[in-house]
């Protein structure tokens, strides 16, 4: 017999709630090794005793063969005195709560193939059971009360296991060994239908009947209530839009399977992989023409947001109805997704034909995640269910815990401990009281789960963001991070870059360090600081936020009051199309606001320039959701391939290079062609200008690594053009991958900056 050896192995990463301990048990048993495995805080600790070759083989296979949902990070093994581990079998121990350090909350996982098979198997005891799950799938983050992740600290604690489930839970070789949410029809959660109070299969049948009849139904999902209706039924869709006060913003569509998805959009293999992966996000894909969907499901977008069933209940519903369904978050405009049963009845019960609920509480609010693929690059637009709160590494570790409180819209918070940043789920617009509550709840939970008290709070410069006000009420050290520095830092940090980069921050609005609003910026940035190199021309926003809601007024701001940079100015009288959408009295007042600089803050924003062009082309005078004008501009351009740029010029102002859009806007007004062609040419223009600004910036600084950040990169056409053109011009280009480019990524960027600043001291 080879030399006897004892080791202790500590494994960090996503190793709880993913079937990791049963896997360790099987692996150790297969190697004839004795010892035990247990959860300790956020890590898994394994003790082994056996022959040296077996231990070495175990260590080799540990990371390589771990369950698909696990992410094995750091593995540290140290030898113990041989006698420290008793001989005999291999045991799975319980959890110890004493260990400190970074702990991980596992994200929710889409129903696995084994559970789907059971769901469809009439002989299985979980046949058609809407809450089937195992160690490889099921709810996680949405049911957790506290760590370590054990059933007693989840929303399942009030469902005592029946004998059959208890046996599976205790059997190391079973797929349900320590599957914390394990349940069956005898002991687990039950469906219910409101109003009426029927349960189980009857409740399910009532929901299916209502959906078949063309009604809107509310369904209690994994991370919140959802609203469903037949996506081909124009009446149902119109009713849903009216009830949600959401006139045009696109709805996501859930389809039974990949084949159905392919009928609605041309999908690449990479898109199909993401669609059917364990996170099961909404994937934005280019819509096929002539789909059977009701007009208006996708608003004015050329894309469609598709996703597949990800819970057993969704699988059952989609199988029963066998058609595309609109599945949208259960809320009314402005409010976050509903998680509470009583709130659901009050807020959704007034217009939904009924509510398909159940008795498993939702502990944390998680919207559906949204992902877009640009070629092979995955870009997350909303990091929520299935993705959050998995950690994202930080290139410069936080010396002490940092709480980064984000921005205002698409709000998220991030807690950074050591090398890891934990972005919380998307909580929406902070000015909503329920969203604000979700924000403070998330802060409390993240700090408790990770057992830290953050002494450093990072926040935006904008004094009016409720997140900034929250930060100001915080004791201890505060670090203010400029909005676009945070956008750029988020991209750099996610890609492990600490050195200088050229940051392209194209955004709606964020407060600059000079008191003006920014959003069309080229920054020379590191994680600890930045210098502004170039910007878009400034133009007034007449009426401030009201100009953002009314792109026609933003356009008037450009026509009446854009910064003078030497180029010939567009003549407002030439804006024939715009004048169809604005009444003369409004225009006269706007003109006075601009002339007198009354409530007309200056903005160097790329997003507002997109709004302006959209309004000048008559595509959007009034926006009903954030970014609508730009979406409509991009959609108009969609039928056109590469189109040459419109004229543009660069100027110098106070040491900065400035894009003067005056010739571009003159060309927009003078263009006799179709609006879509002008829209396409405008996209090319912005890409060309960006390349020119970067070329100049690279010449001045020697830096050729580019990070693209900001809400404007939700524009597929512009982003694709830049990802194509900049590498050909000799740049290395990065864009947010798992961290959103929009304001959902701000908190992670703030955390990266604050961590790097505190490390420098």
């Amino acid at each position, binding site marked *: 017999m080879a030399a006897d050896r004892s080791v202790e192995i500590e494994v960090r990463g996503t190793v709880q709630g993913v079937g990791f301990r049963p896997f360790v048990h099987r692996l150790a048993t297969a190697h004839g090794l004795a010892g035990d495995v247990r959860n300790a805080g956020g890590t898994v600790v394994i003790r082994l005793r056996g022959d040296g070759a077996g231990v070495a083989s175990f260590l080799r296979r540990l990371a390589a063969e771990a369950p698909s949902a696990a992410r094995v990070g750091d593995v540290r093994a140290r030898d113990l005195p041989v006698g420290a581990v008793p001989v005999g079998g291999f045991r799975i121990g319980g959890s110890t709560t004493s260990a400190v350090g970074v702990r991980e909350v596992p994200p929710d996982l889409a129903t696995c193939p084994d559970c789907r098979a059971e769901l469809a198997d009439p002989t299985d005891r979980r046949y058609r059971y809407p809450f089937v799950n195992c160690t490889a799938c099921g709810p996680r983050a949405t049911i957790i009360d506290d760590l370590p992740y054990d059933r007693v600290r989840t929303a399942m604690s009030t469902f005592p296991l029946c004998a059959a489930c208890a046996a599976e839970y205790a059997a190391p070789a079973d797929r349900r060994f320590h599957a914390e949410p394990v349940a069956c029809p005898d002991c687990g959660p039950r469906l219910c239908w409101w109003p009426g109070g029927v349960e189980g299969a009857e409740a399910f049948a009532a929901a299916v009947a209502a959906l078949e009849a063309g009604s809107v139904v509310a369904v209690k999902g994994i991370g919140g209530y959802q609203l469903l209706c037949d996506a081909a039924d124009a009446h149902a869709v119109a009713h849903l839009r009216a009830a949600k006060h959401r006139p045009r913003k696109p709805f996501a569509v859930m389809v039974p399977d990949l084949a159905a998805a392919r009928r609605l959009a041309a999908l690449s293999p990479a898109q199909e992989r993401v669609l059917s992966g364990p996170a099961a996000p909404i994937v934005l894909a280019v819509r096929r023409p002539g789909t059977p969907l009701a007009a208006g499901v996708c608003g004015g977008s050329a894309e469609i947001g598709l996703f597949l069933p990800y819970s057993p209940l969704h699988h059952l519903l989609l199988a029963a109805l066998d058609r595309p369904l609109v599945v949208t978050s259960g809320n009314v405009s402005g409010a976050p997704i509903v998680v509470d049963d009583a709130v659901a009845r009050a807020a959704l019960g007034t217009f939904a034909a009924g509510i398909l609920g159940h008795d498993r509480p939702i502990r944390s609010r998680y919207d559906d995640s949204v992902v877009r693929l640009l070629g092979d690059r995955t870009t997350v637009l909303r990091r929520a269910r299935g993705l959050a709160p998995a950690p994202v590494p930080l290139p410069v570790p936080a010396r002490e815990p940092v709480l980064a409180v984000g921005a205002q819209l698409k709000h998220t918070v991030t807690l950074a401990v050591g090398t890891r940043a934990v972005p919380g789920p998307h909580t929406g617009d902070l000015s909503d009281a*329920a969203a604000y509550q979700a924000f403070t709840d998330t802060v409390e939970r993240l700090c408790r789960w990770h057992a830290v008290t953050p002494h450093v709070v990072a926040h935006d410069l904008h004094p009016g963001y409720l997140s900034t006000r929250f930060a100001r009420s915080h004791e201890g050290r505060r670090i203010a991070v400029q909005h676009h520095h945070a956008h750029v830092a988020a991209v750099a940090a996610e890609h492990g870059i600490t050195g200088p980069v050229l940051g392209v921050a194209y955004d709606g609005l964020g407060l600059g360090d000079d008191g003006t609003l920014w959003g069309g910026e080229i920054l020379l940035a590191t994680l600890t600081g930045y210098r502004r190199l170039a910007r878009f021309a400034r133009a007034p926003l007449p009426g*401030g936020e009201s100009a953002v809601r009314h792109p026609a007024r933003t356009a008037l701001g450009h026509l009446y009051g854009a910064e003078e940079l030497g180029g010939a100015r567009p003549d407002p009288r030439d804006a024939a199309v715009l004048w169809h959408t604005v009444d003369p009295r409004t225009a006269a007042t706007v003109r*006075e606001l601009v002339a007198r600089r009354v409530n007309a803050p200056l903005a160097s924003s790329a997003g507002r320039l997109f709004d302006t062009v959209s309004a000048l082309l008559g595509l959007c005078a009034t926006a009903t959701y954030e970014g609508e004008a730009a979406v409509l501009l991009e959609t108009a351009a969609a039928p056109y391939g590469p189109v040459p740029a419109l004229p543009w010029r660069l100027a110098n102002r106070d040491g900065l290079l400035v894009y003067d859009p005056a010739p571009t806007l003159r060309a927009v007004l003078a263009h006799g062609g179709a609006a879509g062609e002008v829209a396409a040419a405008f996209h090319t223009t912005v890409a060309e200008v960006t390349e020119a600004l970067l070329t100049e910036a690279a010449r001045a600084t020697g830096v050729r690594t580019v990070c693209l950040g900001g809400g404007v990169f939700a524009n597929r056409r512009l982003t694709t053009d830049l990802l194509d053109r900049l590498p050909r011009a000799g740049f290395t280009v990065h864009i947010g991958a798992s961290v959103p480019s929009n304001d959902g990524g701000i908190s992670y960027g703030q955390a990266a900056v604050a961590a790097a600043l505190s490390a420098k001291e």
Partner: protein
Amino acid sequence: LGHGAGGQLMAELLNDVITPHLAAPVEDAAVVPFGAARAVLSTDGFVVTPRFFPGGDIGSLAVHGTVNDLAMRGAAPVALCLAYVIEEGLPTAELRAVTASVAAAARAVGVPVVTGDTKVVNRGCADGLFVTTTGLGRLHPAARVSATRGRRGDVVLLSGPIGAHGTAILTAREGLGLASDVASDSRPLHRLVAAMLDAGGEDVHALRDPTRGGLAAALNELAAAGRIGIECDEPAVPVPAAVASACDLLGLDPFEVANEGCLVALVHPRAAQRVLAAMRARPEGADATVIGEATAGPPGRVTARTLVGSHRIVDLPLGEQLPRIC
């Protein structure tokens, strides 16, 4: 200093720089022990551009402002002092017109202007004319009003439509061509308050006139001082159509626009209907209405239930407009 428009910056200025030295409380007027009687004292400086605007001028405003500050403490005015700081070059006719307006407003209020002071400063040392009024008041026998007395369950009453004064001033100042639609609501509120106290007595817990910072600031101050939450019903808050459309165009939030002729009250629920009826019996309270209620909190949190049923946080205004939309 960039603190002119009231709201958060002004609150910080007061809290950080001024109040620590003087231990001044959160109220707009102070009750002073004065022998057996309880006198109330308040002072206010007025600067406004333009000095003449639809619905009033700096003279009437200076009278109404101080009378209303006394009234918000539950006092009726007994005497006013008037002080001018005049920039050299101000036309005598204009000073005469302002003074006539002060006199007319005081007569209408029923309070004498008993003393005053006039200073002329060099050109550039003042912007035309600054007016300061100081008011002495007598407390209503039943008055126990204080910003700190708001309690959970209190009904929030608003005496009339909001948004007119600030909108009228802005449109008049900037010549925005909307002035004819909207006139300032500037008027005295002491008789309305007396009627409320007659009807509700101690059950009238707190009064505030939503001047600078508007209704948003007034509700936030009441919520903070009483350590309560306030939940108001946005559709119930009367905003005249002309004000609403002007605010939309100018990018103003009607909740944040200054008023000079209305008040909010926190009233014990058992007296709310009685007080409301008393308000409606007076012309300046004819449109009085319930706009919400005080809740357990979180303390200091003001929310508005929107038309679609969500709850938006009504924050202390920043004091300048900076879009928060990204």
